[in-house]
């Protein structure tokens, strides 16, 4: 069962004039349910979020740009975006491999592997944070291993990437798995019978089918990594200009009584998140349109 269903399955939008029908009047309960939903969203989501805008507007435009484009914030955004991107790339490649393995092959311990995918969702981020720090720290097992290779992990960018990778493992796997599942084998067999090699089949037949799911899974994973705080705060060392990701900057601005600057940075973060959400929605609705054969 999908954990984070990235695109909604084919919305049965009725197409063709004859079928067009506004069912609002027939099925009772629209007024009540719509009313409750909108008021609830208004109070619990829109009202609080508006405070970010209210406090951002308290800054004069110059001050706003001064804050956003200050060297420390820019490097922090660069760090956050690049680390999130790398983590997402790792999880995209591994996600497709794992999804493929889980759907296509039978092997001992398959159920265990399937359960392992869920753990990053289940595990609280602070627990992940301290265990990764211990594991990759100077005294940790992996930490020692890496230090033999002359690489230090905890308190460096690599540590951040590892934490982000851990947190976002399930997104691509869970997004690709169902698509692979109900991909009918006949198209592969058709291509195979025509002498296509396995890699050609994967490239030309399978990948186009799963590409939208891979993309929306990656988009979700990227959004999640961008905002991650719990696991990173322990392992990152939070050195300005080196390992200070954006959520940590927001947190420190908050601790410096600086609501407006924290809101300004949060505002820019929100824009990034909405862009990602927007792109992933477009891809999934595009995906639905193709699937439902509607142009």
């Amino acid at each position, binding site marked *: 069962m999908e954990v984070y269903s990235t695109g909604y399955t084919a919305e049965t939008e009725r197409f063709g004039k004859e079928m067009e029908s506004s069912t609002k009047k027939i099925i009772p309960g629209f007024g009540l349910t719509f009313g409750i939903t909108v008021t609830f969203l208004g109070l619990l989501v829109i009202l609080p979020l508006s405070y970010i805008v209210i406090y951002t507007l308290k800054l004069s435009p110059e001050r706003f740009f001064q804050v956003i484009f200050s060297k420390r914030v820019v490097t922090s955004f660069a760090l956050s975006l690049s680390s999130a991107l790398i983590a997402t790339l790792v999880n995209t490649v591994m996600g497709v491999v794992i999804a493929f393995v889980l759907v296509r092959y039978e092997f001992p311990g398959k159920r265990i592997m399937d359960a392992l995918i869920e753990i990053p969702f289940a595990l609280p981020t602070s627990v992940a944070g301290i265990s990764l720090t211990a594991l990759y720290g100077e005294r940790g097992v992996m930490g020692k291993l890496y230090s033999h290779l002359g690489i230090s992990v905890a308190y460096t960018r690599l540590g951040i990437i590892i934490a982000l990778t851990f947190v976002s493992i399930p997104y691509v796997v869970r997004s690709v798995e169902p698509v692979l599942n109900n991909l009918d084998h006949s198209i592969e067999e058709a291509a195979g019978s025509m002498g296509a090699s396995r890699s050609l089949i994967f490239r030309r037949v399978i990948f186009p089918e799963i590409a939208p799911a891979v993309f929306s899974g990656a988009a979700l994973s990227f959004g999640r990594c961008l905002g991650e705080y719990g696991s990173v705060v322990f392992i990152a*060392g939070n050195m300005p200009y080196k390992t200070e990701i954006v959520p940590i900057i927001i947190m420190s601005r908050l*601790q410096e009584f600086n609501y407006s600057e924290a809101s300004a940075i949060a505002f820019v973060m929100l824009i990034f998140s909405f862009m990602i959400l927007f792109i992933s929605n477009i891809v999934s609705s595009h995906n639905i349109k193709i699937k439902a054969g509607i142009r």
Partner: protein
Amino acid sequence: MRRKLSLLLLTSILMSLVLTGCGFNRDKDGNTTSERVTLINVSYDPTRELYESYNRYFERKWKKSTGQSLDVIQSHGGSGKQALEVANGLKADVVTLALAYDTDSIAKSGLIASDWQKRLPDNSCPYYSTIVFLVRKGNPKHIRDWDDLVRPDVSVLTPNPKTSGGARWNYLAAYAYALEKYDNDSTKVFGFMRDLYRNVSVLDSGARASTTSFTENGQGDVLICWENEAYLTEKNDKGDYQIIYPSVSVKAETPVSIVDSVVKSHGTKKIAENYLKGLYDERAQEICARNYYRPSDQRVLDKYKKYFPTDFKMVTIDDFGGWEKVAKKHFSNGGIFDRIYS
């Protein structure tokens, strides 16, 4: 009709989650007389152990003298963060923060009377501390004084002055040393400070986090920290670490105060005042000393002389012209610290 009923049920569940009822029984000047009462003490990072033992002492003492059973709830974190939360609505009855500046910022937000520091003896500091170095066993990098910290081969650990009170005292101690070394030549002093912070490998948000990075995760060669924190670390990890007293440090005054508006609404004014006064009791000063805090009572200080050497220069905040000036000059946006880091 049935739908109206279910809607009512739904809203009542939601409301009950939000409302937290509290009963009222007060004596004539507004102090609560209920049989069981809680007191919230918002403090900074390293005082966890101190207040654990003091709270047990005071709760017993209060029970004996008034029959009321008291439950003191602690909250620890970076001093700046704690000040923000109290100013923002965290209902603290008393605040025991790392520096007067943070308590002043709460006072400025209207929750504490402006002359709060005069309400208790010794500038409302029942205990104070100073800033020392903590090095690995045997002092491999031969660190004697602040000069050694700027050497390129030395990596230093200190928290972020923007969020941690302790880090501000660390900064001021270093600054005092530089002023004396370069007899107030500001460019040289600035150069010294920049070299010092260039050697900082991890900038944690609170003093305790910084200590954890140094001890648990083996970061850095020297940790600039509170004297009490250094002794606590030594006690925990028998002999792995060594304390070094620099030639110049600061008298780190850590004042305490009640939060006027909160004690009024909670009706805990009398208890809170006695709670803080209690810190000056002889037994309490002993508790402070045993937790490696320098007691304000001279007699107890001498008794624990072994832990609290005084053969070094202790600059006070007044020598810098008070927190207002210091905060503006050093720690505000674009201040000296920011310039060190840009």
